[in-house]
C-alpha cells in the first residue's frame, strides 16, 4: 500500500512538469509583452527593454522554462511582476479561502447527493424520485454563476439573510458554497441513483434475498458499499470541476481567493503568479485524486489487492 502511494506521488512529478510546460508555453508564446503591460502604454521603449532584460524575457523560451523549473525546485517560484511580492506568499494568502470553499461544497454535494440518490433508487418512480431527478436535471442545466446571482437576489437583497459578499463569518460562506456545490451535487445524485439501480439488479443481491434478508438490510449491507465505488470516482472528477468553479464563484461573490488572483494575474500577464496558481491547483487536484483512489481501496477489496501487488 505505501509502495503504491509513493509510486503515485512519484508519478505526480512528470504530470506537474508537463502542466507547467503547457501553461508556460501558452503564456509565453502568445502575443503580449509583460514588461509593456507592467509599465503601461506611456513608458519609454528603453524602460520596457530594461525591464525585459531584468525579468529575463529576452532569453530563449526553453532556457527560460528550464531556469523556472530549476528555481522552483528550490522552492523559489519567483515574484509577482506587478507587486514584486514572492508568488508563494500571494498564493498562500489566498489559497485557504478557495480550499475552504471547495471543501465545504464537496461536503455539501456528497452529504446531500448520496442519500438523495440512494432514496431515489430505492423508491424508484415515486414522487420523491421524480422530484429529485427533475431538481438534479435543473441543477445541471443552470450555470453556477447564475445560481449565485439568483441566490444573492433572493437571500441577500430581498430577504437580507446572507451577506452579498465577504466571508468574515461563516454566514458569508453559505451562498458561495451552495452556488459552487449545485452542479456537483446534481451529478453525484444522478450517479448514485443509477449505480444503485445497477447494483440492485446484481446476482449477489438476489442471493441475499434468497437468504431471507430484509430489503433494508440488503440496501445497507449489500448495496450501498458496492454502489459507492463508481460514485467515489465521480466525486474525484468533480473536485476538479469544483476547483475550476471557484474561479467563477469567487468572481460572483467578489471574494479574494486564488481564483480571482488567477484571473487578474492572467489579464496582467503576471507569469509567475499564473504559473504558481495553476501548478498549485493542479497539485491539489492530483492529491485529491490520489485520496480518492485510496478511498476506493477501502471500499473495494479487489482494488486494494491490486494496489498492494
Amino acid at each position, binding site marked *: 500500500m505505501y509502495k503504491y502511494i509513493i509510486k503515485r506521488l512519484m508519478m505526480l512529478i512528470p504530470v506537474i512538469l508537463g502542466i507547467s510546460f503547457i501553461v508556460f508555453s501558452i503564456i509565453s508564446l502568445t502575443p503580449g509583452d509583460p514588461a509593456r503591460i507592467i509599465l503601461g502604454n506611456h513608458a519609454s521603449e528603453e524602460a520596457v527593454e530594461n525591464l525585459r532584460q531584468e525579468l529575463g524575457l529576452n532569453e530563449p523560451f526553453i532556457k527560460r522554462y528550464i531556469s523556472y523549473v530549476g528555481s522552483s525546485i528550490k522552492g523559489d517560484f519567483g515574484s509577482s511582476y506587478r507587486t514584486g511580492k514572492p508568488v508563494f506568499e500571494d498564493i498562500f494568502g489566498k489559497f485557504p479561502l478557495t480550499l475552504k470553499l471547495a471543501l465545504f461544497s464537496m461536503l455539501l454535494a456528497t452529504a446531500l447527493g448520496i442519500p438523495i440518490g440512494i432514496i431515489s433508487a430505492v423508491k424508484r418512480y415515486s414522487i420523491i424520485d421524480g422530484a429529485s431527478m427533475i431538481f438534479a436535471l435543473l441543477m445541471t442545466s443552470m450555470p453556477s454563476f447564475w445560481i449565485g446571482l439568483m441566490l444573492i437576489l433572493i437571500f441577500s437583497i430581498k430577504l437580507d439573510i446572507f451577506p452579498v459578499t465577504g466571508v468574515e463569518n461563516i454566514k458569508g460562506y453559505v451562498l458561495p458554497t451552495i452556488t459552487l456545490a449545485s452542479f456537483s451535487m446534481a451529478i453525484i445524485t444522478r450517479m448514485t441513483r443509477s449505480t444503485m439501480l445497477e447494483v440492485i439488479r446484481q446476482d449477489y443481491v438476489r442471493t441475499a434475498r434468497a437468504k431471507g434478508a430484509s430489503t433494508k438490510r440488503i440496501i445497507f449491507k449489500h448495496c450501498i458499499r458496492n454502489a459507492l465505488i463508481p460514485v467515489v470516482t465521480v466525486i474525484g472528477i468533480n473536485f476538479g470541476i469544483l476547483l475550476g468553479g471557484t474561479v467563477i464563484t469567487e468572481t460572483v461573490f467578489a471574494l479574494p481567493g486564488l481564483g480571482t488572483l488567477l484571473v487578474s494575474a492572467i489579464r496582467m500577464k503576471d507569469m509567475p503568479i499564473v504559473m504558481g496558481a495553476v501548478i498549485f491547483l493542479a497539485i491539489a487536484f492530483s492529491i485529491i485524486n490520489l485520496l480518492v483512489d485510496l478511498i476506493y481501496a477501502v471500499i*473495494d*477489496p479487489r482494488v486494494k489487492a491490486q494496489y498492494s501487488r
Partner: protein
Amino acid sequence: MSQTLLNIKNLYVNYETDEETVRALNGVNLKLNKGEMLGLVGETGAGKTTTALSILKLLPKDIGIITNGQIEFDGKDLTKLKEAELRNIRGERISMIFQDPMTSLNPVLTVGEQIAEVIELHKTLDKKQIESKVNEMLELVGIPAKRKKEFPHQFSGGMKQRVIIAMALSCDPELLIADEPTTALDVTIQAQVLNMMEELKHKLNTAMLLITHDLGVVAQICDKVAIMYAGEIIESGTAEDIFEAKEHHPYTVGLFGSIPNLIEKTNRLKPILGLMPDPTDLPQGCKFHPRCPQCMEICRKVHPDDRQTETHTIKCHLYK
C-alpha cells in the same frame, strides 16, 4: 410412504412489460418428496429458472407475476404468504444456489461474513457459535476454515460455488434449489462439486430441486426427472422412467438424439428441427407441435393432457 414436501399445482407465471407479455410458465405441475433429488431439465427459455424463482417469490418485482396456481410447501401455499413470512422460509427452510458463482457473492464482503449472515438471520446464536458454525460449514464443503477472512475475488469459480453451497446449507434447509450449479464450471471441477453435493445429500437428507440443461448431470445424481418445454412439464418420472423406459414425449426423444454419444459412434445427430416457440406468441394446441416429427391433426388444436402410468407422466396425444 414418503411425504410430499413441495407440490406445485397448475402454476402460471407471466413477465409483463409495457411492450409485451412473456408467458413463461403455463400450468406447471411438480411434486417433490422429502429427501428426494429431482432434476428439472430443459433448454434456454423453457421456464426452469422461473419455476425456481416463483417458489421463493424472487421473480423480478412488478414484472414477474404469478397469475394462477399454488405452490404448496409442507402443506402451506407459498403464493399466499406475506413478504415477512417468506423471509423466514428463505434461507432457513428453502435455500437456493444460483448459476453463476462469479457474480452470486458480494464482492465487498468476506466469504465468512456472507455465510454468517444467513445464520444470523435465522438462528439465535451468539457470535462465537456463529463463528464455529461458519468454520464447520466451510470444512464441510472442503474449504479450510481460515479462508473465511478472504474476499470472493480470491477464490476460483469452483471454490466460490462451494462457498455458495455452504451458505445455502448452513441452516439445514429442507429443500435446496440449485439452478445450474455446475454449468459455469470446468468438467473436472464440475465432477468435484457434483460428488460433494451427492455426499452432502446422504449426510443431510435435504431434498433438492436441481435445474439443469445437462441430462448427464441428471443421470448422475437425480432420483426423479421432469422435462420442461415452453413453460410446461411435458414428461416426468423416476430416473429409470426417463432414461430407460420405451415411451417418451417426442421432445424428450429429440433431446436425447441431439446429444453426441460418447459410447457408440454415430454418423449424424438427430436433432429437433426448428426453434423454441416465441413465448409472447405460443402456438395453439400442443406447444411442441410445430417441431414435432409425429405431429397429428389433433396436436394442432387440442392441448394434450397428462397420461400417467404409475410414476411416469407424459403430456402427449400419442399416448392415451
